[in-house]
């Protein structure tokens, strides 16, 4: 069976490679065959260059360090810089941009011997919850090509779910790892803010973004986190906090673990999602955990708060895409005047100034998609003179209250449980023209980003039409070990993570 190796989790392949029963070359070639066959219908990757990957494979197998990921291909989202590889955030704006540096997480993966597969599809600049805003076209959900894989890390999640990836990195600003993991039936972790270096992650909202693993099971998730976590002098917001032994800490017992059950608005919560989460709780109690009621006040304001803070930061982070240095630049229009007629003077003369402004406007008009423009406009508005206090400053205050709510809750419990998403995967196009509905699909994931706490989504069953449902677990800051242990215990007592999608060949 040609797909057999690709179906295995990384921790099993690692053992096989160490024992000599699995050849990384065979593994990569199988994976490449599989990608070549299946990716055209799924679009989990925007592009794949098999020859380039084979060259990398040879280099890695012959010279790569024999670390914890020796010979293991890891798929990365298109907003993580990889030296010399086109990295575009699925935007026309960054077409052709090949960074001369790699993200710290990429270097850490490579230091453990991993092979990097770039260009997993995503929503443009991570703006979205369905991977439909990608300039290169949407990714399909591997279980139902009529449905979205979630987003924004939809390419990474779909690739892992369909065995087009062994494991992947995504990024999560408001749920972009956890929601697609839930929609695709895989494991996705957003670490504590500051746990993983953001250097080389093309920023959406700097105070919310985190890089995290999307994997076939919790053990792989723990393994990848242990590789990418840790302080990085290149990221001033990365924490010097010690990295725990996430894999070694996994155990099937939940004896004495306090599970916090917050009261939350269940408006829009799908009945089947509610049922699956209810069943998952029963499993947790059976494993020895006990329920604790917790309050998360102000959590209902999280969507509003998030769309102020995240868009404000996004409008700033995206200011650099002006067509001057790299990426897309609009061609000069007629009657725009030549560029740079300001000979000898410090600032260009009016004609050149006008041409410059016209170049900026057209570059940004043509280079950004609709959702990117919507968020830039929103963010620019909330930071504007006269509106700053009412929106951005107020947003920061509510964010502090939300954080305090979590601090209080985690005094009483170890892990908080919620659904990952109010619904299972929705249909392609269903919410694309209704931004507010799209934003609401992140209602349960956003507060973890605002509070900076870690959260993981693990599969917890299926809806009646066979769509996966995700169970979300949240822990206090830097308590990923505890979080993963609960996720692991739950996973080991269920069979959900073994149910692979069956895709009809098209």
């Amino acid at each position, binding site marked *: 069976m040609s797909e057999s190796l690709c179906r295995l989790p990384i921790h099993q392949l690692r053992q096989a490679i160490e024992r000599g029963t699995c050849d990384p070359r065979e593994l990569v070639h199988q994976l490449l065959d599989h990608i070549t066959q299946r990716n055209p219908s799924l679009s989990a990757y925007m592009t794949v260059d098999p020859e380039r990957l084979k060259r990398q494979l040879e280099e890695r197998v012959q010279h790569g360090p024999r670390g914890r990921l020796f010979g293991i291909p890891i798929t990365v989202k298109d907003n993580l810089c990889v030296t010399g590889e086109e*990295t575009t*955030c699925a935007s026309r704006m*960054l077409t052709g941009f090949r960074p001369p540096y790699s993200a710290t997480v990429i270097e850490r993966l490579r230091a453990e011997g991993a092979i990097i597969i770039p260009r997993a599809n995503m929503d443009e600049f991570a703006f979205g919850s369905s991977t439909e805003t990608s300039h290169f076209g949407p990714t399909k959900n591997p279980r139902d090509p009529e449905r979205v894989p979630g987003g924004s890390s939809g390419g990474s999640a779909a690739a892992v779910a369909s065995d087009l990836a062994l494991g992947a990195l995504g990024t999560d600003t408001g749920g972009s790892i956890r929601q697609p993991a839930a929609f695709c039936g895989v494991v996705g972790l957003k670490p504590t803010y500051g746990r993983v270096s953001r250097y080389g992650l093309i920023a959406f909202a*700097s105070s919310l973004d985190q890089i995290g693993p999307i994997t076939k099971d919790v053990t792989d998730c723990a393994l990848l986190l242990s590789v990418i976590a840790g302080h990085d002098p*290149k*990221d001033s917001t990365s924490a010097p906090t010690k990295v725990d032994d996430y894999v070694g800490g996994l155990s099937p017992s939940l004896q004495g673990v306090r599970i916090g059950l917050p009261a939350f608005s269940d408006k829009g919560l799908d009945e089947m999602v509610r049922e699956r989460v209810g069943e998952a709780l029963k499993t947790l109690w059976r494993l020895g955990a006990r329920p604790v009621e917790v309050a998360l006040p102000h959590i209902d304001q999280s969507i509003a708060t998030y769309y102020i803070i995240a868009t404000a930061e996004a409008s700033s982070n995206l200011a650099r*895409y*002006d067509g001057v*240095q790299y990426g897309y630049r609009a061609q000069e229009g007629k009657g725009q005047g030549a560029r*740079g007629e300001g000979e000898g003077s410090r600032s260009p003369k009016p004609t050149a100034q006008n041409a410059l402004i016209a170049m900026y406007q057209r570059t940004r008009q043509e280079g950004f998609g609709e959702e990117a423009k919507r968020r830039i406009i929103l963010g620019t508005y909330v930071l504007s003179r006269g509106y700053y206090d009412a929106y951005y400053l107020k947003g920061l205050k509510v964010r502090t209250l939300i954080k305090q709510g979590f601090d209080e809750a985690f005094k009483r419990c170890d892990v908080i449980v919620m659904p990952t998403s109010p619904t299972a995967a929705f249909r392609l196009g269903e919410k694309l023209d209704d931004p507010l509905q799209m934003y609401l699909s992140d209602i349960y994931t956003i507060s973890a980003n605002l509070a900076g706490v870690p959260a993981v989504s693990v599969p917890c069953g299926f809806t009646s039409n066979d769509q996966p449902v995700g169970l979300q677990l949240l822990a206090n800051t830097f308590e990923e070990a505890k979080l993963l242990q609960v996720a692991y215990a739950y996973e080991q007592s269920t069979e959900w993570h073994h149910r692979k999608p069956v895709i009809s060949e098209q």
Partner: protein
Amino acid sequence: MDYEPVIGLEVHVQLATASKLFCGCPAAFGASPNSQTCPVCLGLPGTLPVLNQRAFEWGVKVALAFDCQLACVMKFDRKHYFYPDLPKGFQISQYDQPLSQHGHLDIALGPSTKRIGITRIHMEEDAGKLLHDPVQPASYVDFNRAGVPLLEIVSDPDVRSPEEAYQYLLDLKAVLGYLKVSTCNMEEGSLRCDANISLRQVGTTAFGAKIEIKNLNSFKAVKAALDHEVHRQTSLLQQGGTLAQQTRLWDAKAEATELMRTKEEASDYRYFPEPDLVPFVIDQALVERIRRELPELPAQRCARLAKAYGVSPYDAQVLTQHPSLAELFEGALRLYPHPKPVANWVMGEFLGYLNANGKEPDEVQLRPEWLAHLLEAIDKGTISGTMAKELFVDVLAHQRDPNVLIEERGLRQIVDEAALNQLAEAVIAGHPESVKDYQKGKANALMYLVGQCMRHSDGKANPRQVTEVLKKKLETA
């Protein structure tokens, strides 16, 4: 109606740290375009800033030198605008929690001083530079300067005349020179200044409409532009006109300011906290260490020089304007303990040379021992005062000890009695007319003969001695 100007100054100082504010690139001036750049200062996507500890410490040092209160917690903010020399579309600056606030500088005004408040001193990164092709219709961007650390020093509106503004800048630059944190070179842009000026009726306290003046390329330009604005605004007000807040550009050729933008056209920079840099808690122990390590500052040194060496307050002020002048003065005094001539040579000959060559005191080396040797040589009569002045220029031009030059060039004066007698006799024999004139009582004739002796000796004869010898010979002839 009488109006008085209310002036505030915003000075940008580039810190001469080895590396830039948020990356490891060299911050030096003058490298070939874009050779000192990296993904961070180019603002490439995904890169993050990391604060340069040295730049921060130098910022603290400057803040302490101006008696500013340091923040307990400082943070950085993003200031947004679009321009091709700004790679991220925003500048990392400080908005509402700057490094320091509420300092002051006492400026010298004649025999007294005046205290000018310092509103704030904050840190920010510099932008790149546009280069306009004089032939092709094209512009280029050089990002070497992007990310170079800057301090912005904002004064209170305490300055009341263009002259005070000029003195404020001189004294501010002196302090920075003493701290050795900046090259303070306006031509290279390591020191830049914008001025704000408004007029109000004498006796009133409310501020008038603020005019900001940009494109000021020298301290003299600041003074000239402010003079121009005082006249322009005064006549406008006296004609019953009103002023509105605007930004104007100084045109040095036209010696006038021109409108750049009105208040309505001012950009909204959309400041907000830089999320890639956490707020910094300023460590008080570090501040105290830096405070202890502060060097003697110009005002302190000025007072000490006046007291210790009895130099006039004016001389003390000139000598302490630049640390290397004061060091030269005191260094030379250790070898040649006569304050008056040393001060005269430093202020007269050395400053004169610097002015003539358009150089700053630290751009031309004059070792204290060279000046001391020169003055000793004059005292000993080895060279004449006139020769010393000529030699001084060569000392500076060739960077050699005057004693070495005297020996090499055989400049030593002829003081030997026999040699001078021989010289005098030869000149007397060669100019019988002048000898006759002298005997007729024409005093000029003696001067002429002395001049001939100097000429025949290539200027090496000691003029005083040769005069005596000539006189003696003429009397007895």
